[in-house]
């Protein structure tokens, strides 16, 4: 801290520094006073770094070009001691004068020049400087980024620059960040009236994030009134941070819940409606993820123009592939085992081993690289919340899938038949429904939904043959908690398990969270074996 504020004090008089530096470097020349470019010609890295910062905040129109040249190693200085040494920038068309940007009339001989070299501290100074220069960039996002960087560095030397930028700023959002940067710089500078400083503390309190809190906490030896204001501000920030943290946990919980919901929705059909324990359900999810991978490869190979939309094609493809496998499995395996749930469990476990090994033999045991399209990456800032876009898409996607599934069951022709067979198999058969065919389609539907879940999971998890195994236990928990044969219950169960998991995690660690959820499940099944939302009436008896 002391090192930084020492540097800050130095920069506070940026122009004075430029005046003094040549003396320190032994280059002393009276008429060099006020030349912000001079420190760049120094052979001392510290002077060079301070010179970069001073130049950036000086507002000199050539600053950006010179600093850029320095970064790229295109800045050259006169090699021999001489007053007011010239600086040149090497361009593709020859040397130009760094100070004016004009072409040099008689080009210098290279033997008289030395490249201005940089070390890590100069490189860091260049980075800060380019950030500050961004304050006057055209794009609002760039200006915002630069203002944010200035806030983070809380550099008192940048105060004049910030104030100038504030005057020119038109965008309200950027102006707000600039004012926060101004407040931070002011507080760090130990200058300004008490009223101005208290106002600055309040401004930081309004910002309410961790960096504002850290900055406030780093201020020592203040006047009592200001210390009191700081304490209040830190308290307020802590409170708000806790609130945001709570919301963030809810968001993470919902996003985990959405993943679980996707994985469990298919299971709710096969387990809930058909009473078939499908241990290979996780492998259907895994197959969906691999289908996504294959579809992306195919599109990249044949229609590169559609690269960003591979996922849109992957959704129906995964549904068809996993659903098709489901129908085949039902016809060749499951149908011989109806009414024998324990045997079904063993047989589908065997099936899951075969599917895993098959995928491992075809694609190899290593993780496959499924790319995320641009419209799914990045994050969204909402107050103190950072929401990652891909998680948001998955939440939305989960809601859509659940909605589509419910609509199919409620209004679709297939859904009507499925419900009829579930409620009364013999009566449905008498009414002309081909129950074996409905069984196959129901199992296919459940598996297809699992495949769709795989498309979503391929975006947030490793696509490996073991993908499904990570979700199968959780999915069963969700279906069991929610109550068998009830999609609303599945939604509730998924959100409950997801949010509980994320709330326990920060206190007890991920592993203990999982153990607690499992212990909870064991107790829960014993209390309410039918789930939270048991089916009522005759269907409950079967």
């Amino acid at each position, binding site marked *: 801290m002391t090192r930084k504020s020492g540097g800050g004090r130095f920069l506070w008089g940026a122009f004075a520094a430029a005046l003094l530096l040549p003396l320190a470097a032994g280059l002393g020349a009276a008429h060099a006073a006020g030349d912000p470019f001079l420190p760049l010609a120094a052979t001392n890295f510290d002077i060079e770094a301070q010179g970069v910062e001073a130049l950036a905040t000086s507002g000199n129109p050539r600053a950006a070009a010179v600093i850029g040249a320095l970064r790229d190693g295109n800045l050259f200085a006169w090699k021999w001691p001489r007053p007011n040494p010239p600086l040149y920038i090497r361009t593709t068309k020859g040397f130009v004068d760094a100070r004016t940007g004009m072409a040099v009339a008689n080009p210098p001989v290279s033997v008289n020049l030395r490249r201005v070299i940089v070390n890590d501290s100069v490189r860091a100074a260049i980075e800060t400087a380019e950030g500050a220069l961004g304050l006057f960039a055209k794009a609002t996002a760039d200006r915002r980024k630069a203002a944010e960087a200035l806030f983070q560095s809380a550099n008192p030397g940048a105060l004049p620059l910030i104030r100038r930028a504030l005057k020119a700023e038109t965008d309200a959002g950027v102006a707000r960040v600039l004012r926060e940067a101004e407040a931070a710089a002011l507080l760090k500078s130990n200058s300004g009236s008490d009223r101005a400083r208290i106002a600055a503390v309040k401004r930081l309190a309004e910002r309410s994030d961790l960096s504002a809190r850290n900055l406030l906490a780093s201020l020592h030896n203040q006047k009592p009134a200001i210390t009191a204001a700081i304490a209040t501000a830190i308290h307020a920030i802590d409170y708000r941070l806790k609130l945001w943290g709570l919301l963030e946990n809810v968001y993470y919980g919902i996003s985990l819940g959405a993943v679980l919901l996707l994985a469990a929705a298919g299971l709710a059909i096969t387990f809930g409606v058909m009473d078939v*324990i499908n241990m290979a359900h996780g492998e259907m999810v895994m197959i969906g993820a691999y289908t996504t991978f294959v579809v992306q490869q195919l599109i990249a190979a044949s229609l590169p123009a559609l690269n960003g939309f591979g996922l849109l094609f992957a959704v129906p493809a995964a549904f068809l592939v996993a659903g098709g496998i489901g129908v085949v499995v039902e016809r060749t*395996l499951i149908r*011989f*085992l109806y*009414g*024998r*749930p*324990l*045997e*079904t*469990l*063993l*047989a589908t*476990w*065997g*099936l*899951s*081993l*075969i599917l*895993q*090994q*098959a995928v*491992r*033999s075809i694609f190899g045991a290593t993780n496959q690289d499924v790319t995320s399209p641009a419209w799914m990456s990045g994050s969204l800032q909402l107050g103190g919340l950072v929401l990652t876009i891909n998680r948001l898409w998955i939440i939305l996607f989960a809601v859509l899938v659940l909605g589509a599934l419910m609509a199919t069951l409620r209004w679709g022709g297939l859904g009507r038949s499925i419900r009829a067979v579930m409620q*009364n*198999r*013999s009566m449905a058969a008498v009414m002309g429904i081909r129950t074996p065919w409905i069984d196959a389609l129901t199992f296919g539907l459940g598996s297809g939904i699992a495949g769709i879940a795989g498309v979503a999971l391929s975006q947030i998890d490793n696509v490996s043959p073991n993908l499904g195994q990570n979700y199968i*236990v959780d999915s*069963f*928990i969700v279906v*069991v908690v929610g109550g068998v044969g009830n999609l609303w219950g599945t939604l509730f169960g998924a959100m409950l398990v997801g949010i509980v998991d994320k709330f326990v995690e920060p206190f007890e660690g991920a*592993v*203990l969270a*999982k*153990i607690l959820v*499992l*212990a909870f*499940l*064991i*107790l829960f*099944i*014993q*209390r309410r*074996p039918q789930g939270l939302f048991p089916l009522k009436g*005759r269907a409950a*008896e*079967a």
Partner: protein
Amino acid sequence: MRLDGGAIATLACLLGGAALLAIFNLAIAAGSALHVPSFVVSIVGKYLCYAILALAVDLVWGYAGILTLGHAAFFALGGYAMGMYLMREIGARGVYANPTLPDFMVFIGWNKLPWYWYGSEHFLFALILVVLVPGILAFVFGWFAFRSRVSGVYLSIITQALTYALMLAFFRNDMGFGGNNGMTDFKDIIGFPLDKETTSVGLMLATAVILSLAYLLARATTRSRFGKVLIAVRDAEPRTRFLGYRPESYKLVVWTLSAVIAGIGGALYVPQVGIINPSEFAPANSIEAVIWVAVGGRGTLSGAILGAVLVNLGKTWLTSALPDVWLFAIGGLFILVTLFLPRGLIGLFSGRGSTTAERGRQSAASEAVMREAAE
């Protein structure tokens, strides 16, 4: 208790085979064609431990209808209890030469033995733990589960959740059981060095004897009056309850007994393979134990032993000869056995009528038909 032909054959195969193996290993010189190498002895010892686990699974699945997907948890707990003793036997011979603390505790910076390790240096105390830890866990778990009438697939799922939770817990370093790496580098057991041939032969023989005793115990249990009620519970639980029995008590007793047998199997397993780690709790292990029983023949006891040995023989051969095929093979076995061999290999050979398990299934099926008709 009278032994019938099948039981005598089983015992003869077990004890005779083990004795022959011991003779061919120790009495015949290493150069001879008849010599059995030591690694075969320890592999057979391992199979016999698996057979004890299979026997325990068959006791609850074959006779009480509880499909357990978590029995490996009891097996591993017994193994950990034995591992604690073996760890303490190392004493100052460990890498850190600490006379009381096992190496892994020194490594994570502990300077005091946690309370649950007290007394683990005594072999007898370890034997008590081997019985008590799985037994008490099974009793508590069963007491809750059976009293609230959790049954069928729900019970299966929570047994799986149980072993999964234990696996996660044992992976943690601060559990004090070696975390990820578990316990290994054992030196000797009650003074016999584990790397000597005679020790591994002795352990193999002990396993064979204990397996035989467990078989006799399980056989006596299932043929007794108690066993008859148990089978009645398996085939028609409500009906048994209406007749005035308390199915939960019968299930609880057999469940706890089975867990203790599994724990003893695990305790014998650890000195023979020389390591115990949390992966023994993996749900896949428990499910594999179920398939051993299914292959041999559910509800036959001797079938469980046969299945455990045969499937593991196949596993040892396939995983070294054709590693990629193993999962296809075991997966296919699951499917084929459930579809085509509901009575297992034993059922294939003893062709007389249906076994009790088969009859049970038929009566359950007819009951379901009747219920549906009634609706």
